[in-house]
């Protein structure tokens, strides 16, 4: 499979770059919001007021990544979002119902479509290139990455802006809570809580991906694989074992542990069977649980590979490796969607 180099990353999440200097934002509750940056840095003040929050998050993250990569206008924009623009969807739905389909205004509808963020980024950059949005739950990010790798295989000269966004809104949190997904917890103890439920999260992460290594390259995106709807744990583990045969054992496993007993038991079984002696780190106690959370894990992994050190707050099991060369992100959504994302030092 085509490999890509990460030339820049922008991340809007509950954490920020301070994570790598040892500062971690802790949180209590069942909902972990992003620490909103000052969006005026990237967006015209007149536009900010009307722009949905998830769009602002995405625009900010994309700008940071492009700046880091020194790319003014990418050759493709590819992103993933499981939920799309929930806030504007909620506003339009609310008015639709309460006003009985009368006297509605277009702004919320316009900003409710799933491709609003990628369209807005293209618009702000004046970018006429390939533009795509995947909306497939816990495979949204992974398909955006796979599409990017295909684009690079087809034309290695391209610089691709790839990423993922998802937001929490009051409606979505309320409704998802009724499915008994969340619990009140402290992010500090979430991974050890060993009870039912987790903490909801959100975030936006964008990467600039290129086929050629350059002086800005932070890490290599070596492989992306998805496993859909495995019949059993056994099948999942056979799939991962095959992946490890091809790419070798990582120096660090970054697992999608989220503090939910059942969710974490899957990882525990896999860690024991497939990753003996491999130290394990986690990320969802830092960003919360959401379908595109693996994008935050990629931001973290690329930072670790670049800095040559794992933040203590991320470690879950074993000793943090010194200067790791290979980090494997294994994330699953309800056991039905498994993704493997391998990042390597460059």
């Amino acid at each position, binding site marked *: 499979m085509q490999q890509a180099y990460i030339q820049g990353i922008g991340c809007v999440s509950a954490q920020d770059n301070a994570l790598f200097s040892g500062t971690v934002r802790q949180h209590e509750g069942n909902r972990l919001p992003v620490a909103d940056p000052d969006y005026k840095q990237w967006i015209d003040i007149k536009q900010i007021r009307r722009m949905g929050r998830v769009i602002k998050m995405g625009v900010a993250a994309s700008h940071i990544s492009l700046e880091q990569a020194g790319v003014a206008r990418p050759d493709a*924009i590819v992103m993933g979002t*499981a*939920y*799309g623009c929930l806030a504007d*969807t909620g506003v*339009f*739905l*609310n008015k*639709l*119902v*309460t006003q*009985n*389909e*009368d006297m*509605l*205004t*277009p702004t919320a*509808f*316009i*900003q*409710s*479509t*799933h*491709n*609003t963020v*990628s*369209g*807005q980024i*293209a*618009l702000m*950059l*004046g*970018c*006429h*290139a*390939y*533009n*795509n*949005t*995947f*909306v*497939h*739950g816990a*495979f*949204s990010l992974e*398909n955006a990455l796979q*599409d990017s790798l*295909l684009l690079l*295989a*087809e034309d290695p000269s391209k610089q691709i802006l790839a990423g993922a966004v998802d937001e929490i809104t009051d*409606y979505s949190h*309320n*409704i998802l809570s*009724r*499915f008994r997904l969340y619990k009140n917890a402290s992010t500090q103890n979430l991974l050890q809580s060993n009870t039912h439920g987790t903490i909801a999260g959100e975030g936006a992460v964008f990467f600039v991906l290129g086929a050629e290594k350059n002086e800005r390259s932070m890490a290599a995106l070596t492989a992306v694989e*998805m496993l*859909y*709807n495995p019949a059993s744990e056994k099948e999942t583990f056979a799939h991962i074992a095959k992946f490890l045969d091809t790419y070798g054992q990582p120096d660090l496993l970054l697992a999608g542990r989220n503090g939910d007993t059942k969710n974490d038991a899957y990882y525990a079984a896999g860690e024991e069977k497939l990753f003996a002696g491999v130290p394990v780190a986690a990320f969802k106690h830092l960003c919360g649980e959401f379908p595109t959370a693996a994008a935050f894990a990629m931001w973290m992994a690329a930072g670790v590979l670049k800095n040559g050190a794992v933040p203590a707050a991320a470690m879950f099991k074993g000793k943090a490796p010194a200067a790791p060369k290979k980090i494997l992100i294994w994330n699953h959504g309800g056991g039905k969607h498994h993704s493997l994302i391998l990042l390597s030092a460059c």
Partner: protein
Amino acid sequence: MSGNVWIAGGGVISGIGQNLGQCMAAFEAMQPGMEKMRHLQSVHAGTFPVAEVKADNEELARKAGMPAHWSRTALLSMLAAKEAWQSAGLGDISQYRAGFVSANTVGGMDKTEDFMKSFLDNAASGRLRHVVHHECGAVTELVADALGIRHHVSTISTACSSGANALMYGARMIRAGMLDVVIAGGTDSLTRFTLNGFNTLMILDQQPCRPFDDTRTGLNLGEGAGYVVLVSDEIARKIKPWCRISGFANANDAYHQTASSPEGIGNFKAMEGALKMSGLAASEIDYINLHGTGTQNNDSSEGRAVERLFAPSYPPLSSTKSFTGHTLGASGGIEAVFSAWALREGIIYPNANFTTQMKEVPFSPVTHFSKGHALRHVMSNSFGFGGNCSSLVFSKE
């Protein structure tokens, strides 16, 4: 990254028929599908004609072999995807590395709307089974699971160009050697959400829509699903494929969140890119299935882009949305099926309701159904909100 990608079959359900045969009969009889709303419950039922699939959810569910309380988006998807797979004559799908790439824009919104009524009264009420398939991807998985597809499942949402992008992604995965067969296209059901959304933009026509006509005043919404079966060279050798997908391109207009640039920059780039990949000159295109929504803005922008690329001689062209309405995320899939079938059967589709030449462009659409043409290359356009523009080119060989 080599080899061809072939169309082995296709299936469609729309306001003019529940399968491809019924749709063809409607074109031949010049019977567009717009009528007064019967299945969608809306205060605008008497105002805006729509091209609904002429069946209630119980009937669709029975035919699809799915529960009737599932989203209509999934029921429509299943019926078209099933027809597509059967038409390909490839037997048991489990013997292939198979993928399902389905596009939609509304997901399970039809059910979420019902849920919201109770939920807004009391946040503890509303049946959760009405929101469990709200996400676009959840609808795709219901169908993938029913079809027994596991190697690859994904969902694309780029507004009205979604379905075309699904074909592109599927074709590229086959070319890269990742999959042998992909069922690719799109689905969308009518919802109050989209109906009211388009109404706020004031681009819905209260009369039957008139694409590429000077008197056009907007679009009619439709619903449905359309899928093609994409296969590799190796699989294509075992069957008689309809045609080949020889070119495609995705470009962005980068002009406005909903409106097209006056000169159709994105539209032009998409068509130009698709032609370039197919290695064809514009003069070699024998028919264009236009995006042709019937709005002032789209038809004028698309028309000017067509003029820039094709002048001075234009192939026959038409918008089948004058029959099916604008089916949003499904339209790229439905029109890909129509375009691929046109090549196989030598059909040129009519553009309904055409009376008056547009001032902005020198050409006019075809107004009568005809078949038996020796078509070699057909282009299909899909353009949407967010500046998303995609064009596909299908070739006989």
